[in-house]
């Protein structure tokens, strides 16, 4: 008996349970308990992997190693804290008449469905199942984006569905090509298992794998939100309910990047060149710079932060593309830091929007005077995501810069300029939002800022000193991906 079964079983049972209970007032609490249980199970799984090393479950259909187990823990943790935020928030939305009980039921059911899809993406060893789960995540979230049924949200959901659906179809083509390449060396039905492919990577035909990687990168890259395939992302984030934005930004993007990195490991083993890395660097850098510029022309607070997500995902893709141990370590750490910080920010933004009754940046003013907790939360979160020391994002960005200096010194100025532009873009809007004159009739609301505090304290802690357990963990994951240790 391994902890993998409860990790996957809890959301699987949670779906029908919440489909039954979803519309009652306590459903949010049930969702919290389910996610809490999932988090504990994932910790158990992490300890198992920590003690025994990589393991395969169910005839090799699932495979857990240092790389994915840490993302499993991160996924369930962000899932839990977002659920804690979501329970009172969604109830509040229902009271304001923006939601009907049936839509609340749909929301809670699909929350669990999304968690299940994400966890399957991370733990499966089968590239085909990975694709199926990734598409499943789209299907679970698409109706949530249009939960409010405003014309804007329907439009956003349609775009999300079509763009991600077509995008991810490319990834399936890439997966078929992988399987085709495996068929050439006679692996039979096992040719879709990642571990088998990885073991035989050197024998796989490099031409086919290079072609496959292009399709895989475009496909999963659509989900990461890489420019120019990013159009769905700001729309889906800004129009859906806020807890959705938090888990989309904190989890879905990471898991799509995880899929790309797994594919890159296969392709690198086969081609022996840096082709996959260069592609990822190019796409990553482009996304990073374009998103940083787009930060300057936003009018919606959630759109603003979703562009910041694209920017950070671009940086991570770039860092994984660089590929050395240091860059990989930095990218892994940046993944964690960005998830924690960005979901904390979206939680705060959700409260801010409820307080100001609008998402328009020009109309949200004086948060720090009306409700200091929300104001400070937003300010500190923005400082953290913009890469201020002493927060963890600074550390990971610094490591990315160091790695770039070592390998491609001439790219460092581009990264620095991008960070500067993004910083200016965020603060030109957030400064008046936090400090501006309070509009009349703005009152504090009941807000639960525990998740924000916990996330930001973790980010601060990891900026000051990475705990030994965690650095060891990142180190093991880096060894899995890059082959050697940065420490």
């Amino acid at each position, binding site marked *: 008996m391994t902890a993998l079964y409860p990790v996957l079983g809890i959301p699987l049972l949670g779906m029908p349970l919440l489909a039954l209970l979803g519309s009652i007032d306590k459903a949010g609490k049930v969702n919290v308990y389910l996610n809490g249980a999932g988090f504990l199970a994932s910790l158990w799984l992490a300890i198992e992997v920590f003690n025994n090393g990589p393991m395969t479950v169910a005839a090799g*259909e699932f495979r857990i190693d240092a790389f994915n187990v840490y993302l499993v823990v991160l996924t369930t943790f962000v899932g839990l804290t977002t659920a804690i935020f979501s329970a009172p928030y969604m109830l509040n939305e229902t009271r304001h008449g923006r939601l009907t009980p049936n839509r609340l039921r749909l929301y809670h059911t699909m929350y669990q469905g999304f968690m299940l899809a994400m966890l399957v993406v991370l733990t499966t060893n*089968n590239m*085909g*199942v990975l*694709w*199926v*789960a990734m*598409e*499943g995540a789209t*299907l679970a979230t*698409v*109706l949530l984006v*249009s939960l409010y*049924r*405003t*014309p*804007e949200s*329907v*439009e*956003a*959901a*349609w*775009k999300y*569905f*079509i763009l991600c*659906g*077509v995008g991810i*179809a*490319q990834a*399936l*083509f890439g997966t*078929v*090509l992988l*399987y*085709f390449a495996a*068929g*050439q060396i006679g692996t039979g*039905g096992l040719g*879709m298992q990642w571990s088998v492919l990885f073991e035989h990577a050197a024998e796989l*035909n490099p*031409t*086919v794998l290079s*072609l496959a990687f292009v399709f895989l990168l475009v496909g999963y890259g659509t989900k990461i939100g890489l420019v120019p395939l990013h159009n769905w992302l700001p*729309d889906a984030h*800004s*129009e859906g309910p806020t807890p959705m934005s938090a888990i989309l930004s904190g989890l879905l993007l990471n898991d799509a990047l995880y899929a790309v990195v797994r594919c890159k490991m296969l392709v690198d083993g086969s081609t022996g060149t840096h082709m996959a890395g260069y592609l990822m660097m190019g796409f990553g850098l482009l996304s990073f710079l374009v998103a940083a510029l*787009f930060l300057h*022309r936003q009018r919606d607070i959630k759109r603003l932060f979703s562009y910041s997500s694209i920017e950070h995902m671009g940086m991570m893709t770039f860092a994984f593309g660089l590929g050395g141990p240091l860059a990989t370590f930095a990218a892994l750490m940046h993944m964690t830091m960005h998830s924690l910080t960005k979901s904390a920010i979206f939680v705060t933004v959700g409260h801010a929007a409820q307080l100001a009754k609008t998402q328009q940046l020009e109309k949200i003013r004086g948060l720090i005077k009306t409700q200091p907790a929300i104001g400070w939360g937003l300010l500190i979160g923005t400082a953290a995501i913009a890469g201020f020391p002493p927060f963890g994002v600074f550390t990971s960005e610094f490591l990315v810069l160091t790695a770039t200096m070592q390998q491609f010194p001439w790219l460092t100025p581009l990264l620095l300029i991008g960070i500067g532009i993004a910083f200016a873009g965020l603060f030109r809007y957030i400064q008046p939002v936090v400090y501006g004159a309070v509009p009349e009739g703005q009152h504090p609301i009941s807000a639960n800022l525990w998740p924000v505090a916990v996330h930001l304290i973790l980010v601060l802690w990891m900026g000051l000193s990475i705990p030994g357990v965690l650095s060891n963990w990142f180190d093991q994951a880096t060894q899995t991906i890059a082959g050697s240790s940065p420490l």
Partner: protein
Amino acid sequence: MNVLTNHSLYEQAILFIAALVVFTSFLMLAQKRLSSLVAVFAWQGLLLAATTALCAYTQQNPHLYTSALISLVLKGFLIPWMLLRLIVKFDMHREVESLLYPTYVMTAAAALVLFSYYVVLPIEQLSALATRNAIAVSLAVVLLGMLAMVSRRQAVAHVVGFMSIENGLFFAAVAATQGMPMVVEIGIAFDVLVAAVVFGVFFFHIRESIDSLDVDRLNRLSEVDR
């Protein structure tokens, strides 16, 4: 591989069906009526099921028969039937859509087919004629599906384009790799089915919000100030 026993006949049959599949994709680009568009899509689904069954027969592979059955039911009948029902319900079965730049679209489509063959060229040394063609054809079907989505404005046409992309991928899986593992195929079929249902739900939402299914009118969200 026991494909080799009826090597040439099998290859010829696959090539023939591959040509028909691309032909249906071209037909889709040119259909002005939504109901005939859905009919062409159903034909494509039937061809796909036929390919899978053929593959299953030559290989004596029972799981491919299941896969053929799934394709037949899902792509040949269920999804086209759902789409047709919606078209009738929304009273769009008599509407004739004017296609934008039909000549350019057709030329572009021909170019895309050539491009697909060009992309697959490096795989040439690896495999049999049929496999190579199958990969090129499925890539072409994927790209033509995208072209259909770009050149149309009706939400229903977008869904048909989307589903035909899925058909192209399935064709590659069956003809080039003799079918994917069962669990993956069932998973994909499940995703396609759920996607079809969700699309159906969306038609109602879109109609409610813009009072038509012309997706060009979904233009509220953009970065440009208006």
